């Protein structure tokens, strides 16, 4: 079985600040990390590898320094990685990104059994690249997957829906996007990191993957950012301090809720 996991390097959004003038992210003091949802996708792949034996390949598209997320994945147990990096890819929207990744997967193998993504990336939050790749590859798609079972060329997955869990069966190959309700990601061991640091990671550009220039990067991106604005700042609300007299605070809250007609 050959499993491909697509990962993205994203800014760590736990402590993000927005420049009030340009409404863009202030990068200073913000670290780059592997998109957290992709960690769950990787873990599902590694569990399948543990259970059935598989080759797990990680792919990312980004600037040259994005290779660190591939190494992190390899430190955890992925077998190899591919870095898609080229100026021609710059400015790609989700369509052009999906195209480039699909091209890379085509070059990598004629038969990928499973192609896994995180549910979405925490920077753009679009959740479109996984489905986009499935379209380009003309391959079955299951989104919001929380567990994967594979038997022969058939799979059974559970997907996390708002109203409950769906169980879906199908035939490989398939593209899946994974939610954080999946298994807890493993840690990279020190010896795993040592091996991953030394690993050779091929860098592929647009030409290497046979991507049409007009379909890459900004040229291939129909999405245009017309305006960026920050959502209006929410007022702080009302705070009840219950440290001194909790019961009084509770009564106050109940009174307030009654007044608003909530309770």
């Amino acid at each position, binding site marked *: 079985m050959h499993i491909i996991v697509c990962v993205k390097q994203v800014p760590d959004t736990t402590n993000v600040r927005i420049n009030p003038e340009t409404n863009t992210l202030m990068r200073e003091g913000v*670290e780059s990390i592997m998109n957290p949802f992709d960690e769950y996708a990787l873990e599902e792949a590694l569990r399948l590898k543990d259970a059935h034996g598989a080759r797990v390949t990680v792919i990312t598209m980004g600037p040259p320094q994005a290779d660190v997320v591939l190494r992190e994945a390899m430190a955890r147990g992925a077998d190899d990685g591919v870095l898609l990096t080229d100026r021609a890819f710059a400015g790609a929207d989700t369509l052009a990104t999906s195209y480039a990744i699909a091209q890379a997967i085509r070059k990598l193998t004629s038969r990928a059994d499973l192609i896994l993504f995180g549910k979405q990336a925490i920077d753009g939050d679009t959740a479109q690249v996984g489905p986009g790749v499935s379209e380009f590859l003309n391959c079955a798609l299951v989104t919001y997957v929380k567990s994967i079972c594979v038997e022969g060329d058939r799979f059974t997955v559970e997907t996390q829906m708002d109203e409950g869990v769906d169980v879906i069966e199908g035939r490989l190959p398939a593209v899946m996007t994974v939610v954080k309700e999946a298994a807890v*990601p493993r*840690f990279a061991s*020190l*010896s795993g990191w*040592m091996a991953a*640091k030394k690993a050779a990671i091929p860098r592929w550009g647009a030409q290497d993957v046979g991507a049409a220039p007009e379909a890459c990067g900004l040229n291939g991106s129909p999405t245009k950012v017309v305006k960026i604005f920050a959502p209006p700042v929410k007022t702080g609300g009302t705070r009840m301090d219950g440290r001194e007299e909790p019961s009084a605070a509770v009564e106050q809250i109940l009174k307030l809720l009654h007044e608003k007609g909530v309770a």
Partner: protein
Amino acid sequence: MANTAKQVIQTDILCVGAGVASLATALALLRGLKAQGRPLPRVTVVEKGRSVGSHVLSGAVIDPSGFDGLLTEEEIAKMPIEARVSSEAFHMLFDATRAMRIPWVPPMMQAHGYPVGSLTKLTQYLAQLCEREGAEVYTGFAAVELVEDAKGRVIGVRTGDKGVDREGRAKSNFTPGEEIHAKAVVLGEGACGILTDRLIAAKKLQGRREQSYAIGIKEVVEVPADEARVGEIAHTFGYPSDWSTYGGGFVYHVSPTQVMICFAYALDYAHPEKDPHTLFRQFKAHPVMAAHIQGGKSVAYGAKVIPEGGYYSVPQVVADGALIVGDGAGLVDTLRIKGVHIAMQSGRAAAATLAECLAKNDFSLAALRAYGDRLRQTEGWKQLKRVKNVRAPFSTNLVLGVMSAGCAWATHGALPFWPVPLESDHEALLPLKGGRLPPAPRVEAGPTSPDRLTDVFMSGTIHDEDQPCHLKIKDRKACDACIVRYGAPCQRFCPAEVYRLEEGHIHVDFSNCLHCKTCQIKDPYQNIEWTFPQGGDGPRYTRM
């Protein structure tokens, strides 16, 4: 938990902690050997922080002598430090409103032209240079134990297990720690290093005097852009410290929009109701300080202890198989509160020794001892010696401290010639019955005066909460006694609100921990043991 380490990882030189001292060791060693055309050893650095620099906190106005000859001109120019000290001031703060600017900056405090900026960033830069020379730096791995051979020689470290739940059981992602063995281990853990202190105790390496510490609390404040103030620095003495506690602060304009503000308070303070974080807020509210951060907003926070014992507290820096470098050895000039350059000089002295050991393939204790001799020839060591007695008199009286500092400086450390005794930090605390503190002037919360938990949030600190609490309370009965006798000072000396007294019981919110080590040092019953949380946990400083 029983460790099921697979095979042992072998390296040549292992550095524990990716701070400036360790990185200077690695860089100097690799560059030195390369320049001589000799074969390069495998140099491995392990760091408990999630990234390089995430547990590094300093001022920092950096005495650039540590870089001379180690970094090229071009590399020095490319350092991620924007400002050079352009104007200096020195203030005596009398109380919450009054102050006097000392008309001249004392010669030992002068720093004109020195780089001033974030040590976190500088450390990240040094790590990149090290990796370019072939060193391997691994972050998120805490060395939790020294490994010794049957003869008691340090031969490596063991890293901590990951994925252990609060009861100590393996979770689904349990990852056992691993052993790394090396020809020599360089301990660059920083102030109050746990493995370092264990080694010092086990091998009886203590200096003539116990180490003394101060807690340094720092914020980065974003201010409206002002190009004219870049490089402006000010140091203070006095308020909100009392007359018998060594304390002071600084404010550094490190870029047009960023100001670093810090207050350091000696941990041999006496009154259990003293609260360094509250003092820090009072300090920032002083008109002299407030003028520097007006219209600004605090955006980053951190705290760390600073070794202040100086010359007499420096341990023997060599044990069989191990060298101690940097703050872990207490190599801080206690008058200038500068240690970065000495840390680098110690690292370079260690590197020169290791290069020799590699050439002769002799890592015996006798061969490693050359590091101690080299360290004593560094400029940094001479500075330590000159101010060897500066710190202690301050614990008696500020005026005495200033006079004796002047005296020591003028006589190049000759006077006073005896080691002035200094009480140990935790014994200095007096029982509550000595009287309550008068109510402190209240400081309103504001953009440059966040409360403690807001500050903790800005430190970025985070710990997996389903793991054993890394702050071990050895004896709960001692807590009960402490609550009565001292009023549970842990609630106050902790700058991160880890300890809470609720219904007569101390709760430990270890996830707030900044790894500053104040609790272990100041607890009057020495009842708190700081152990390592899961590697990668802890503060996430990005510009401290």
